[in-house]
């Protein structure tokens, strides 16, 4: 996003400065200094100098590059712009050698070098070592999404509108009209408002807009957006609960009760089973009394779905019944899910509402 801005700027400068090289490194790709160095050399097109010489040791490489950069001075060699994406990952390199050297060169009378780091972390400066920090120019630009809702709507419109050079002109016209119409629609505005409240990130807007546009359904409607928004905001775990069997639901309810009784302390299978037994014996009319292994199987299914998480790694010695577990669902989530669960036995629902209802 912000990279594009930088690149545009560079294109312009390129015309003026004739030769301006810019090695582009990403912290996700160049995971250590060694790889980064190689990449720089490659991007600076120094290999022709290196020839077919097999790249030697890391040390040799570093010396080589430093030598290369040291040769130049302000007047003769062309400036280099280093762009380091995911800058925070470079910080974790050993000794921050690369950063130190780049900054050092930029601060001394060698080849003119500009280093631009891109990161989402605000506290990047604290991660720099003191001597590296001292060499850093402390020039920071913070990009914030500081627009309000009106601008947001505008962005929405711009993103959707087709550009003038779109080949099919009549369609473009139709589409753009539709977009204009959409942006004034009340429901659409609601949806957008909601999203805007959640995040100002434009990427999520894009995600929302990438919805079902097919040949048969060429124009976006407000309903489409609403649907997309709904999909966007559904709770994934609650969705999983919808697909569970009654027995599994019962187990989850038992866990929920345990959580309430013991205030979030971890539980094991035996406790859950006991709770379940209590429910079956005293209250349940519609439920069949399952065998313990069957319940165990259901419990393990929940474990696989990661609705339940063990506190420690399961070891061979510990019996599975007594492994301590935690429920990864909130009680409100469970209740919500139960509301929409089809064909839920009423006694189970009652039991869910109150663990003491059988008294």
């Amino acid at each position, binding site marked *: 996003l912000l990279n594009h801005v930088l690149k545009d700027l560079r294109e312009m400068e390129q015309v003026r400065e004739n*030769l301006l090289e810019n090695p582009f490194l990403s912290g996700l790709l160049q995971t250590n200094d060694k790889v980064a160095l190689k990449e720089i050399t490659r991007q600076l097109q120094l290999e022709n100098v*290196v020839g077919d010489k097999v790249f030697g040791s890391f040390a040799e490489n570093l010396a080589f590059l430093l030598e290369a950069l040291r040769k130049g001075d302000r007047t003769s060699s*062309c400036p280099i712009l280093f762009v380091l994406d995911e800058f925070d990952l470079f910080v974790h390199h050993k000794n921050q050698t690369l950063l130190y050297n780049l900054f050092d060169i930029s*601060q001394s009378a060698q080849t003119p070098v500009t280093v631009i780091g891109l990161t989402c972390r605000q506290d990047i400066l604290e991660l720099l070592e003191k001597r590296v920090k001292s060499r850093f120019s*402390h020039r920071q630009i*913070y990009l914030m999404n500081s627009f309000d809702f009106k601008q947001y709507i505008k962005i929405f419109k711009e993103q959707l509108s087709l550009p003038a050079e779109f080949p099919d002109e009549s369609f473009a016209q139709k589409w753009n009209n539709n977009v204009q119409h959409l942006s004034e629609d009340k429901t659409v505005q609601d949806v957008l408002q909601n999203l805007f409240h959640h995040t100002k990130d434009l990427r999520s807007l894009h995600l929302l807009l990438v919805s079902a546009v097919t040949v048969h359904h060429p124009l976006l409607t407000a309903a489409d957006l609403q649907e997309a928004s709904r999909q966007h905001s559904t709770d994934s775990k609650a969705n999983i609960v919808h697909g569970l069997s009654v027995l599994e639901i019962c187990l989850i309810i038992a866990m929920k009760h345990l959580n309430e009784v013991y205030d979030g302390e971890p539980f094991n299978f035996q406790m859950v089973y006991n709770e379940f037994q209590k429910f079956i014996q005293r209250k349940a009319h519609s439920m069949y009394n399952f065998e313990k292994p069957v319940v165990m199987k259901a419990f393990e299914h929940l474990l696989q779905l990661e609705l339940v998480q063990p506190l420690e790694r399961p070891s061979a010695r510990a019996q599975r019944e007594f492994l301590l577990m*935690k429920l990864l669902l909130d009680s409100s989530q469970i209740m919500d899910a139960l509301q929409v669960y089809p064909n839920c036995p009423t006694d189970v629902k009652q039991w869910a509402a109150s663990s003491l209802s059988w008294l």
Partner: protein
Amino acid sequence: MNTRQQSKLTYSWYGKPFSSDRKLRISHYNGILITSESSKTETCIQLGDFILVEGVNADQPYVAQLMDLYEDGAQHKRAVVQWFCRLEEIPQNKRKLLKREIPAQEVFFDQVLGYDTDIAAETIIKTIMVLPLHLGEELPIITLNKEQTFYVRQSWDGKCFKVLSPDTFSKLKEANKKRGVITSSSKAFTPSDILTPVKKEMESVVRSATKPKNADMEIESKHSTSKSSLAKERHSQRVANNDIKTPTARKKLELNSPTRSKAKLLGCEVLGLLDDDCDAMAPLEPSAPKRKVKFTGEILGSPPKIPCSNAKSKPTCETAEHRQRSSDTIRLSPYTKVKDFCEKDRNLDEEDDILLSLVGYQKPSSQMPVLTPRSRRTCAQKTSALIAEQISMLDQEDFSSDSDSSYCSSSEEEEEDDDDDVPCTPEKKPKSSKIFSTPKSSRKSAVHTPAKTPKKTPLQGTPRTPRTPRNATPEIPRRVQAAQEPASVLEEARLRLHVSAIPESLPCREEEFQDIYNFVESKLIDGTGGCMYISGVPGTGKTATVHEVIRCLQQAAENEELPPFQFVEINGMKLTDPHQAYVQILEFLTGQKVTATHAAVLLAKLFSTPGPKRKTTVLIVDELDLLWTRKQNVMYNLFDWPTQKHSKLIILAIANTMDLPERIMMNRVASRLGLTRMSFQPYTYKQLQQIVSSRLKGVKAFEEDAVQLVSRKVAALSGDARRCLDICRRATEICELARQKRAPEIVRMAHVTEAIDEMFSSPYVNAIRNASLHEQIFLKAILAEFRRAGVEEATVQQIYHHYVALCRVEGLQSPTVSEIMAICSRLGACRLLLVEASNKYLHMRVRLNLSQDDVMYALREE
């Protein structure tokens, strides 16, 4: 060739002291005898000889002329030498003064003062040839013993090159001539007067057995004498010497190689084999017995004996050289009548009276085609094939340096001569014995060159092509457009404020400067070693000051106020591994590139042995703390070297922490570092102000108050000069931007404040204010949870409950857990929150990365 590495050598005086000073208990000697225990050889080196002396670099021993030998009071054998310096020893920048290509074998008559000419006699390796040449003169063609012969054309006095004065020229020449004599005597293993009667007897027996040997001998000796430009009156003595020697040598060979002598029966095949086996020595040895058996009636037969003896003896320079000559002789002798040849050679001798020894090589070889028609078939064909191959190989190669090309062309010439010769081989000598012998000898020489060329060229020629790029300094492409000249006052100011701009002087560091300067200067003058530890927070001018000191010292050294020194700098940050420090230091000092462990060994040797010609080395170790290893051997070594007696090493170690020696160093390292410490205090605001204004001298760009504000701000924070300069630079930029609207040509308070704000303000508050509504609510929920629990840490589940409640208050639709998690991870990415790994889902713990008050403040503004 360096036998010293293989065998233990003992050094003993040769002869009696010719003069001695009783008071000083110094006795002077004429020569020194080097005995190798393992190979049982002795070499005698006398005054005036040219010798190789062990140096820093094992491959590149120093060249010197022996001027005096004496034993001092402590029974140490000492030698006084006149140095010659190789091209490698001359500073890179001075080499340009030569304005010509320097072949590897050329040395310079060293007139640099300050080198220690008094060395331990044990460092002498062996003798060599150094031949004086006039400036315009071509380098003589060398076919053999390239490593043993050096040439002098000019002298070097540390500043410029001069033509050799006629005085030195003649002196050198004289030495060469004299050395010829010594050669003969030294060749005799033991001086003739010590010769044992047994040997004489043996020799006479052998001589009687081989009738024509005597004549042969004489001729042979005449060759060598004429060539090596011996004085005529020495002839007889020489002959005697040769007589003495050859039989013994032969005798030995015969004894040593009975199997070899059988080889004659195998005839051609063996020869072919031997030919292939073209090591200079290998073919020679067997040749002697063969000859001996075969050509007792022949005139020739003598030539190979000298090589034989050489093979036995320690291959000293002269003898090896002599072998080369004899090989020439061999080539010539078989076909021409020996007497003719002698006459011819005499003629030559008379012709080139001045450049005798040099041209001596050339003449025979150039006349060779005339004199030596080859007669063998198979061998010749083989050679020609070989040669053709080589020529094609050579043609492909591009030789840049003169020496190479001349060398090549000469060998090529020779080879071509050989080629030409092959077709016109007159087979007028049908005697198989003769034919055998000639191929043998001529082959030897012929093979020799090819054998040498492929061997040499891969060494010098072929790798050069790939090496050129390696040595070529990598360069960033030149910029096409020139850098813009500063247009306005502000731009000018900005340029000057850049950290890289080197100020003429370093204000506010005069005291430290003086201290370091005095330290290094005193050590330099004393010629001792020492360490100094310099500490200080970043941006206090440590490195700059040290560099300034070095610059001043170098200036002083150039003005000859101080002894010259070498300056090496390593930076811990620029090393990938602490052990790489060795490699870099060694590369700076000698230009070698070796592995870290090897470099450590070499350096240890370098600093622990007394180097005669070594300058003091000033080593700057920047970012010392990064050289820390678990065993600390790098630091230990670094600080151990200066304490050694002969190291002449001064170390200036720079690091940030004041108590680094106490904190991370082991006791033994810290104690070696010594107590010479210096710490750079952070700049005070007055000093910063002075720095900025000194840089801005003459440019009216800043308000006085503005500078003061910046200085005070920075001094209060860190005292980092870099930071200060950066702020000023930024201020000029802001000013420039503002100027486009109005026109204030000067940086005012407002601009500076803006710049400072920009640099020091925390980004968090701003980030929170720009966060989305739900993100803000989430932060509020966190605050509420913290307040409830009283702990600055909460799980998402706990926060979620507060969150839902807050949403109800705000009248918003409460989000689902998934959305909460998304928000949480977003804030975590910005590091507003510190979050755990997300696989714990609801039980993920969350902490604020900034104080609660900041969050409150940021949220309340809304």
